[in-house]
């Protein structure tokens, strides 16, 4: 029996396998956009052909962070803003795993902003889903980094004086090699985009618009939306950085005005992933490092090999 026999298992996979037979009752509010992410993710998994045992879902903290509780796979419900460093190390340790990180806009663009920038820059081969509901959900409705300017909340009673973060533009500038935006109200597109993101060899960032009917009643429910790939108005080349940047800027500006544009905004399939880069410079082993610990025949070097420098 191989050490990680779940990895690379070749069989028909059913989306129901991703529903935990435990705590099936999600604590999300009725009508919450988070249900849409969960559904799209479960639908995407059979298409990419990955089983629960070879998938690691690392989440942050927030309503969104609970995704790992309602999705059956290896899961890591980490701490606020830190899902990315946990996830990317797991991918380096065992590149055979399907690694997905997920969290909210506060989690990813606020407290975890630095990790977002650097994980994108390194282009780790993983998928990052940000539940963007323009609000802090779990802590009960405070202004988040994506809340529109002028947004009023208990902690910003006079209305936020800050411009919201532009997640896709930030992502492009940071180095993500796949960037898309989708919305919970559009399950088919959402599924397609998640499939692409997971199959992409590099850092795939999906800004996932999710409505929060409980704390963000004013905000649009992200309908009607326009798919930029289906609309002639947005005839841009997703592989061209400049065109992609313009399209993102446009989409982000229009969202502030209440118009929802979704779809793929940037795809770079040429750039090698971080793992490939590191293997090319021999800074990372060819075989998954994690396997060696369970392989009785593995050979290990000792520090004694270095002692001659000290004589």
């Amino acid at each position, binding site marked *: 029996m191989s050490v990680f026999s779940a990895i690379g298992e070749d069989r028909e996979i059913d989306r129901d396998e991703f529903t935990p037979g435990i705590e099936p009752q999600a604590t999300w509010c009725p009508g919450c956009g988070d249900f849409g992410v969960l559904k799209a993710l479960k639908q995407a998994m059979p298409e990419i052909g990955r089983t629960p*045992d070879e998938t690691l879902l690392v989440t942050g903290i927030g309503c969104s962070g609970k995704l790992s509780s309602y999705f059956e796979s290896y899961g890591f419900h980490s701490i606020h803003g830190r899902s990315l460093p946990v996830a990317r190390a797991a991918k380096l340790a065992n590149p055979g795993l399907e690694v997905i990180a997920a969290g909210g806009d506060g989690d990813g663009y606020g407290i975890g902003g630095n990790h977002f920038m650097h994980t994108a820059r390194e282009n780790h081969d993983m998928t990052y889903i940000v539940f963007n509901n323009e609000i802090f959900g779990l802590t009960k409705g405070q202004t988040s980094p994506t809340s529109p300017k002028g947004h009023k909340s208990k902690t910003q009673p006079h209305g936020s004086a800050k411009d919201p973060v532009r997640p896709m533009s930030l992502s492009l500038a940071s180095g993500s090699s796949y960037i898309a935006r989708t919305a919970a109200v559009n399950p088919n597109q959402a599924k397609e985009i998640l499939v692409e993101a997971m199959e992409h060899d590099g850092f795939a960032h999906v800004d996932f618009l999710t409505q929060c009917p409980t704390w963000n009643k004013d905000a649009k429910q992200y309908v009607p939306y326009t798919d930029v790939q289906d609309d002639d108005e947005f005839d841009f080349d997703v592989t061209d950085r400049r065109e992609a940047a313009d399209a993102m800027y446009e989409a982000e500006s229009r969202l502030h005005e209440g118009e929802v544009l979704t779809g793929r905004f940037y795809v770079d399939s040429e750039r090698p992933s971080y793992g490939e880069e590191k293997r090319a410079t021999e800074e990372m082993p060819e075989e998954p490092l994690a396997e060696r610990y369970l392989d009785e025949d593995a050979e290990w070097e000792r520090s004694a090999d270095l002692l001659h420098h000290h004589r």
Partner: protein
Amino acid sequence: MTDLMWRIAGGSGDGIDSTSQNFAKALMRAGLDVFTHRHYPSRIRGGHTYVEVRADSEPVRSRGDGFNFLLALGDSFARNPQADANTVYGNEEIKPLSENLDDLNEGGIIVYDEGLLDEETLERADIDLEARAEENDWHVFPLDLRGLAREHGREVMRNTAGVGATAALLDMDLEHIEALMEDAMTGDVLEANLEILERAYDTVREDYEFDHDLRVPTGDHDEQQVLMSGSNAVAYAAIDEGCRFIAGYPMTPWTDVFTILSQHLPKFGGIAEQVEDEIAAAALAVGASHAGVKSMSGSSGGGFALMSEPLGLAEMTETPIVLLEAMRAGPSTGMPTKPEQGDLEHVLYTSQGDSCRVVFAPANVTECYEQTRAAFRLAYDYQLPAVVVIDQKLSGEMRNADESFFDREPNTDPGSVLTEAEISEAAHHESGKFKRYQHGAENGVSPRSIPGQKDGRFLASGNEHTPEGHISESPTNRVAQMDRRMRKLDAIRGELDDAESSHQTQYGPEDAEYGLLVWGSQQDTVFEAVDQLNDAGESVKALGVSDLMPFPESEVAAFLESVESCMVVEMNASAQFRGLVQRELGRFGPKLNSLLKYNGESFEPHEVVDGFERIVSQEASVPEGTKFVPAAGD
């Protein structure tokens, strides 16, 4: 014959480090025991720096009291590219000669570069060298080191001239020094250095009469020796424990270990990551370990503060990691290149909730190796974070040890990890989820699976969770999980108490009246003081404590029972270790007083001796730079 305590002083960037390292190695190869002590400012060029190399035929425990040979190299600003450095740095115009006279022992030797250290410098510093030399019986040798170097090579090689002069004055063979140079250099550079070495040696032999007693002692090792720093020992222990993942962010003095492992792990099939900050660094260690790789991170005080979050996450998710905390003087950025033991409470209690971690504070280079290995083993067997805490002194000091000490079998066992075959036999929830966090486990350890293993699925959560890992606020589950996690510490304490080689070290006569209690890097210095005190007719013993959590209650209690009174020696201003002892043992308060030092320097043995006099006589004052705090309730 007295032991040699050689100080080489100059500006940062003068090659003081490499020269002293080679000199120490040469003495080691000549059969002596050596110890080096580094002093350097937080800047890249200029500024005053020195390294002391102490050598003896007997085991050397500390830097010793003062020093007895000064090799004063050039003016630290002589080659500073900033023409106005003197004005920019104000009074920091440090001269290696004038600056280093205060701790030079009676009968000591001074070699200085006459080309750079002129009368004027001394005058400006208000030093009458001749008078002081007479008063202290110093033997002064002004030599044209720079000229010699220039004549046969380049001016920067004047270190070599200094070493040649040292060898001549100490009646030392050049053979080992030459061999080391041949290892390190080639071609013209080697030729020039060898030439300079010999010329300096000959010049001194021919031109001077020696009337000093100091000679290189003779020694003889039975075994091949290696010269190692605390940082080397920590890094090598990690390699031998199968650590193949390191993530970090530079911060002095942790950077040493980070650099060593970053250079070696990729060659050893591992992965090294320099990341955006320390939160990420420790979180990466957690992620890699969760995915089945033995991993490590670390920092110094400020960066360790950022690691507080992932440290707690590792405790709650029971993910093994090893963190190194290399302390420097705080608070905040403090004094980056100066040692202190001020982060004790920080490493013990940082992060929310009850601490469930192992904390070790090795005493010296060899213990750095042993305890780092133990930290990995315990972290992976018991699934918790282990913190090894050293300081700027221990990270940089070098000592010799038998090579065989470090030549050991690796341990690559990932600890309490199940194989797929074992997982298939293990308990699962009816949904198919593996019960990763089962309540029972007598020693607290519930074995884990690794992502990618078939049927090992579970949720690791930083929230309180059920046996399958799902978030739970059930009171019964909470108590069961909390109790199980805390039981690990009892089990570890039991294991450590049983261990053949306890890391607590008793030193001095068993039936002594007075006790000295010390932790971490100051242990050996205090042991040297114990010898001095007993030689002077006192009755003193010491206990050096290297295990901080779980705390070695019975060993410390037995020690304190056995003495009338006890002085706790530590490098911080608030007596943190004394506080820990009282907290853990809940008694002995009136028996404990403290000798504290927090001026950025580690203890010298005589300061401990003088501090001890204070307890006995109640009148003596403690040496400058130390502070005496009497027992509570006195």
